[in-house]
């Protein structure tokens, strides 16, 4: 075929694959959000002795969320006359698209990511941080003072907490040397080493990355504007903050995005610090080597493991929300600027110095006589593809020259 024709021909296969990815990721975006809204009610009822959620909604209260949906869809769609109508309506789109797009890079199991990118973590954090634009737009365009105060607080809080969050997520990167989320988990996975289960390869058991996990989790909770950092809504001070003028379905999208980004940041935490889909006892690698269908079984098992880990972290966020009272804005900002940023910077420097000192002293970048992280290098899948892609491109170019 003539090279010019080949170039203009539209390729259906990547598009169909992309649509399939979107559908699959969409299921894992909407479903957990629904489950966590249900769990939030149940957990809050148990923690604070609330009577309603333990009784209503049929078996296990599953009907309550469905009833809420049916109610929200029938609510009148209100926007104040003074509001900037276009921006007011645009805001929920930005919030949902930002938190949905972040899932593009999340590997649910070995290789099961919509986009296996070599800068996956970076892109995912960037996508998640776009959410704040929607929140500011929502508050600003509402033309309400409550909404404006909520949005400005939220902007200050979210951008401040992003700094220690990014620095803490750098700690495992410094130790593992890759930004590819898939490889990060592959490096943390391993086999039994002289009585040590592979669990000890997880970053959380690293003397520097362990504290970084706690710091990351605090910042992640704040960046999802969850209590005790939910200053943006702060119903006892600001009516409903940036959501004051929203109603019905439009209002509920902000919550969909909030629960989804809770799940996303917990997924990042599970991948960076808790070994991702690795179960820590060698079951995953045992399944993988089982032969026919073993890889698929291992991946299905791994996806369940990763979702369990992320769900436990989301449960922790819910638990914190219903246990701790809300902080004041000055406390929130002081916690970040005067405590979390210095702590994160110290941890980052420690993560940089730790392997350097150990290598200079002992010739090995670790203390425990475990398998070196370099030995457990991930499959060079993404690298492979880039290389072969480049090769194919040069090949086609030279063909074109002929």
């Amino acid at each position, binding site marked *: 075929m003539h090279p010019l024709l080949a170039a203009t021909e539209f390729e259906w296969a990547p598009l169909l694959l992309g649509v399939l990815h979107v559908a699959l990721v969409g299921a894992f975006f909407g479903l957990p959000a629904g489950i966590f809204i249900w769990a939030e009610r149940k957990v809050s009822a148990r923690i604070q002795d609330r009577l309603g959620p333990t009784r209503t909604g049929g078996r296990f209260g599953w009907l309550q969320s469905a009833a809420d949906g049916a109610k929200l869809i029938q609510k009148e769609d209100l926007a104040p006359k003074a509001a900037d109508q276009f921006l007011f309506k645009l805001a929920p789109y930005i919030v949902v698209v930002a938190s949905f797009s972040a899932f*593009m890079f999340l590997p649910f199991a070995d290789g099961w990511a919509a986009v296996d990118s070599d800068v996956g973590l970076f892109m995912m954090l960037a996508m998640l941080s776009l959410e704040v634009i929607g929140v500011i737009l929502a508050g600003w365009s509402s033309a309400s003072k409550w909404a404006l105060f909520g949005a400005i*607080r939220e902007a200050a809080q979210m951008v401040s907490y992003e700094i220690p969050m990014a620095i803490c997520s750098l700690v495992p990167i410094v130790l593992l040397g890759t930004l590819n989320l898939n490889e990060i988990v592959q490096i943390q996975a391993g086999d039994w080493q002289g009585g040590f289960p592979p669990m000890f390869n997880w970053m959380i058991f690293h003397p520097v990355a362990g504290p970084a996990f706690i710091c990351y989790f605090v910042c992640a909770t704040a960046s999802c504007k969850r209590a005790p950092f939910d200053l943006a809504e702060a119903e006892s001070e600001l*009516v409903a903050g940036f959501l004051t003028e929203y109603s019905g379905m439009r209002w509920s999208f902000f919550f969909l995005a909030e629960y989804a980004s809770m799940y996303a940041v917990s997924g990042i935490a599970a991948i960076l610090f808790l070994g991702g889909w690795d179960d820590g006892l060698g079951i995953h690698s045992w399944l993988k080597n089982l032969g026919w269908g073993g890889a698929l079984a291992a991946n299905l098992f791994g996806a369940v493991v990763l979702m369990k880990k992320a769900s436990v972290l989301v449960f922790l966020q819910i638990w914190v929300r219903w246990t701790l009272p809300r902080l004041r804005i000055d406390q929130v900002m002081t916690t970040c600027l005067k405590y979390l*940023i210095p702590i994160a910077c110290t941890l980052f*420097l420690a993560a940089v110095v730790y*392997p*350097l000192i150990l290598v200079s002293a002992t010739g090995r970048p670790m203390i425990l006589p475990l398998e*070196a992280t370099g030995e457990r290098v991930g499959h060079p899948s993404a690298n492979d593809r880039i290389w072969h892609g480049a090769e194919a491109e040069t090949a086609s170019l030279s063909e074109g020259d002929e």
Partner: protein
Amino acid sequence: MSDLVLHIALFVVAGTLIVMAPLLIGRLVRPSLPTPEKDAVYECGEPTIGSSFIQFDLRFYTVALLFIVFDVEVAFFFPWATLYGGSMQLADTQLSAEARAEVSSKLLNAAPGYPEGISAESALQLGQLAFFDILVFFGVLLVGFAYVWKRGDLEWIRAASNSSAARANPPPASPRANQSVATKPDPELVS
């Protein structure tokens, strides 16, 4: 169109549909009975006073500026961290030959199975160089952060009346000097 761009486009379209579909379905079932009261901006049941597009506190701008400086620097840490992490793994003297080739090819973005891996000594040298690089880079950032802290820009609650003086020079250490000026929280906007 690369795989990434295609996926971003598809995810944006799908995210838009997630929001749009329920709103369009809702249009069929929800009422639309606007009244002047419903269309008014909520201000605790009172008629609204003035515009809400008011000037808000300058403190928020300080935070925004701090964020820009920090976040731009942190964005540069990410590529550096992958290089440093890779060189530290290669500096492991007991690394097996195939792992060394693998990590080296990844670090150099070369073909998989790059034959001659980077030796432990040169990896350590690379790591040391990268370490001093980041020390300078991070040091500049931390000096700036310390300056902002010392100037009192990280204090969320500041005295309103002496704030201009406090911005010009660091607040005096002795409590007696503060007594002359009445200390009260910013009345402009407590938010």
